[in-house]
């Protein structure tokens, strides 16, 4: 096998997040709940957010999906807890630009934390939607217009 190719996508960090996802649970006091589906594969994400004073006080997700979608959701929840709505939406944009191959500064990518490692998805166009589904759910739950 072209193990190097597969290693590129499935880095240790990604596999670890997928096996032991962070914040994969329901929230007791969610201020918003969003469900998004990936119609091509049937993956589903239910995202629950607790917004307090314009900040993401807590966030959790449930649903099912592939390694990439699960690890992406896990990394996203880590990244946005404690951030303001505006910062979270900016991160969603940085992530989207990154996997679509648009140039962003290293400082921008650093804001994503572990999620920056998913830049490798760029080389696997068929899998971009797997990585971005949770971020679209976040955008929607923070009030952005998102096509279901």
């Amino acid at each position: 096998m072209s193990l190097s190719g597969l290693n590129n996508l499935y880095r240790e960090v990604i596999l670890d997040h997928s096996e032991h996802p962070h914040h994969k649970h329901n929230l007791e006091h969610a201020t918003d709940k969003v469900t998004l589906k990936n119609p091509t594969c049937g993956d589903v994400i239910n995202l629950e957010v607790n917004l307090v004073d314009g900040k993401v006080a807590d966030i959790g997700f449930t649903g099912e999906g592939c390694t990439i979608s699960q690890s992406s959701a896990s990394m996203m929840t880590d990244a946005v807890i404690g951030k303001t709505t505006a910062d979270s939406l900016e991160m969603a944009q940085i992530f989207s630009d990154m996997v679509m191959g648009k140039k962003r500064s290293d400082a921008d990518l650093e804001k994503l934390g572990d999620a920056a490692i998913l830049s490798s998805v760029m080389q696997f166009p068929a899998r971009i939607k797997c990585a971005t589904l949770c971020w679209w759910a976040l955008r929607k739950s923070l009030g952005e217009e998102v096509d279901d």
Partner: protein
Amino acid sequence: MDNKFLKIRNDFPILNQKVNNEPLVYLDNAATSQKPQAVLDEMVRYYQNDNANTHRSVHTLGERATEEYEAARGKVQKFINAKESREVIFTKGTTDSLNLVAATYGEENVSAGDEIVVSYMEHHSNLIPWQQLALRKHATLKYIELTADGQLDMADAEQKITVKTKIVAIAHASNVLGVTNDIQKLAQMAHLHNAVIVADGAQAVPHQPVDVQNLDVDFYAFSGHKMLAPMGIGVLYGKSDLLKAMSPYQYGGEMIDFVEKYQSTWTDIPWKFEAGTQNVAGAIGLGKAIDYLTEIGMQNIAEYEKHLVEYALPKLLEIPGVTVYGPQNQINRNAVISFNLKNLHPHDLATALDMDGVAVRAGHHCAQPLMKYLNVVATARASFYIYNTVEDIDQLIYAIKDAKEFFKV
């Protein structure tokens, strides 16, 4: 037989390439087949020599294009043993064919309280047109259950098809479970209650001999692109008396008889259903694909694919963690094997296989009610065709084992 089929591979130039630095193994034939050089050449020849609009141009090229287009219709007629060539309507594909029947025959013959019978194994294209027709007409959509090993439950079919049934719409072969359904028997059940039977032949016509008179189907739909022909050409077969009684599907050029300011009359079948400029090159390509398949022999193709499935199935089942959906033996199986690897999402599996050059489909296969019925989100699917070999299957098995190792599942 093997030697003959090994040579076939050389007719498909696309197969001679590397993907991710590995030789391409194309196992996504249920989605679309590759095209032999003969079909590609035929379409180029048509465009280089004879291209013109059909049935209206009073010049030599127009005559030639019309003649070739109608000759292709004749080839389809023979291939599926329709009684007359006018029972063959060219469409964009299976989906278009089935929508045509729902929008014409269905619209005219289904009323509130009537029943339409489908099965849990229908592709969305043989499900949504009927689901929406039922909603429009306040009719009831009924599902035939499946047996434990994923075959159509014929006893349940007998219960579900009743005097209230107007349409029975069933796949001739499943694009997920690898089973061929007894359409002849279902046609008998439908006709017993004066219902019509519509068969979705998309996964059957490319792989086995199909005789629409013997099956006694009222309508039969299939696509060219799954049987070596280009995309964008398909067929709706319909019994001539039914087609004659139906209203046109679309209105416009070519399908008319006389057009007055406030009313019009329609031309004969099949042209009544072929409004506007048609996909002439596609039809000619389909005709050539039929020549190619006929030369090999549809029975030989069915047997060769059975041999591939016989080889692949036990090897797949031997891998710990692999679940195969549908019958677990090769009896009643066609060249489609859907499977899952425990603790690995099919999308991850498909990406891993792709890195080994193996192209399979992963997803719900446009059969979401079936996925729910099987209690899975999605599956991986390997589907074979005439140019596949046992070596391709070896590569698939090797790649699955590789993926298992990589993901430690």
